[in-house]
């Protein structure tokens, strides 16, 4: 009888402790904003991050061993080269002739502004949150030591990945754009109609454009609008292409489903924008920002 009572006390005590922690730390505003227990979390990040880094590099070693089976290093390099080529050709194709002409015109100018100001830090993705939790966040193997702070844009050569949230010394946590709680200000490339994108499922973004009369065709490109002060999102990064226009009669917004350029669940190498482009975010609204996006997302030599 005494043991059962002790068990009950232990159980109730632990449950109360759990409730207390959640109550203290829960913050309904937006995910990733440091709660009162942010300090504790960053300690956890600093202690447990290196473990994941080590595991990540171990996995890469095994992966390259398996991939390299039957392939020489030259083959590997050729594959990487061709993949990059296909990726860049795809981007060129999707942004269209008109935009490309515009891109050529503004290329010189943009090189001085956007491209000149954008500085990125490369990182590897070493951890991914469990898919069944319904939240999409990832660990990258770069942290405060590499100049990463909270609320910086994370991109790949193809487009937007998400933004950094909790940052430890050696690792950082990225809230992916496909997370249901993530909200990204976006713009329809070319037309300049603005809207917000939030995650629907791992391969779909739900974008609500603020123009209910907007005529948009599948295949149209959506880019980031850019946040005030360029945090958390820098302007002009490609987000994805419109897959489907949702019929919502009478609604004040035009809802479309967007296929992201980046499959965040299988991404490997990412770049964190540690210094935003030197353009005024408001200027990103002018036509030609697609080329801005192209240059912003182009892999750095």
């Amino acid at each position, binding site marked *: 009888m005494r*043991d*059962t009572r*002790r*068990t009950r006390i*232990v*159980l109730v005590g*632990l*449950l109360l*402790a*759990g*409730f*207390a*922690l*959640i109550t*203290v*730390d*829960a*913050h*309904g505003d937006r*995910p*990733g904003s440091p709660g009162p*227990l942010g300090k*504790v*979390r960053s*300690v*956890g*990040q600093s202690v*447990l*991050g290196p*473990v*994941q880094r080590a*595991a*990540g590099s171990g*996995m890469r070693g095994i992966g390259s061993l398996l991939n390299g089976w039957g392939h020489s290093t030259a083959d590997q390099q050729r594959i990487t080269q061709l993949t990059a080529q296909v990726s860049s050709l795809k981007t060129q194709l999707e942004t269209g002739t008109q935009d490309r002409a515009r891109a050529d015109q503004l290329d010189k100018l943009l090189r001085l502004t956007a491209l000149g100001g954008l500085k990125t830090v490369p990182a590897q993705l070493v*951890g*991914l*949150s*469990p*898919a*069944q*939790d*319904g*939240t*999409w*966040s*990832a*660990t990258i193997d770069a942290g405060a030591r590499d100049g990463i702070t909270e609320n910086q844009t994370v991109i790949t050569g193809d487009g937007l990945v998400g933004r950094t*949230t909790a940052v*430890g010394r050696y*690792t950082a*946590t*990225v*809230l992916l754009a496909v*997370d*249901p*709680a993530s909200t990204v200000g976006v713009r329809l490339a070319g037309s300049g109609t603005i809207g917000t994108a939030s995650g*629907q*499922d791992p391969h779909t973004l739900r974008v609500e454009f603020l123009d209910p009369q907007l005529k948009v065709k599948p295949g149209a490109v959506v880019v980031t609008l850019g946040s005030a002060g360029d945090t958390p999102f820098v302007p002009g990064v490609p987000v994805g292409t419109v897959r489907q226009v949702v019929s919502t009669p009478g609604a004040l917004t035009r809802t479309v489903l967007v296929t992201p350029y980046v499959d965040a*669940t*299988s991404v490997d190498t990412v770049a964190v924008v540690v210094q935003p482009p030197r353009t005024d975010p408001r200027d990103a609204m002018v036509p030609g920002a697609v080329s801005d996006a192209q240059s912003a997302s182009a892999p750095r030599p």
Partner: protein
Amino acid sequence: MRTLLRAALTAAAAILALTLESSVAPKLHLPYAVPDLILLATLALAAEWGTSGGAAAGFMAGLIQDLAPPSLSAVGRHALVLTLIGALAGRAAREVRRSALRTSVLAGFYAALALILDTVIGLALGDGIGLSGSGLLLALGATALYTAVATPLIVPGLAILARRADGAGARYLAPVGNAVEGAIFPGPAHTSPGLRSEAERV
């Protein structure tokens, strides 16, 4: 001393399970879910340590999961879920006889239960459900299946370690899985003090 050893083993097991779950399991590209390895670690420890020991191990493992990257949910969320699961598993340890299959099925059941609890807490916190209705059902089935399949890889070995942590003279509740060698002594002297009262009550 025993508490210290238990805490150390729980922390080591949770960190290892977490690393496997977040760094290795996603590379397998399993659809809809990944195996809930931290839950499996909790189950193995709880099966040896009883209700209160299981609850404490679950609390600690959950807290580590909450604090480690890439988790962004409120601290305490997984801790609460795993405390309940650990207590339940510790209570049901007697049900887990020397059948690996039954252990696996139970683990799958607990994984689904943990996901449901997590969803309920998410709703209560106002975070909403990240998954759609059908997505949640698929995730439930997938996590139950993967966790059940992963059970023989994690539980028996960890259960042996959990028993070692209690010292040579420690009593244990029930062996977990076929891979665990060790005779079952049916006498009351070899059931844990935590469960004896229940046995007597029945």
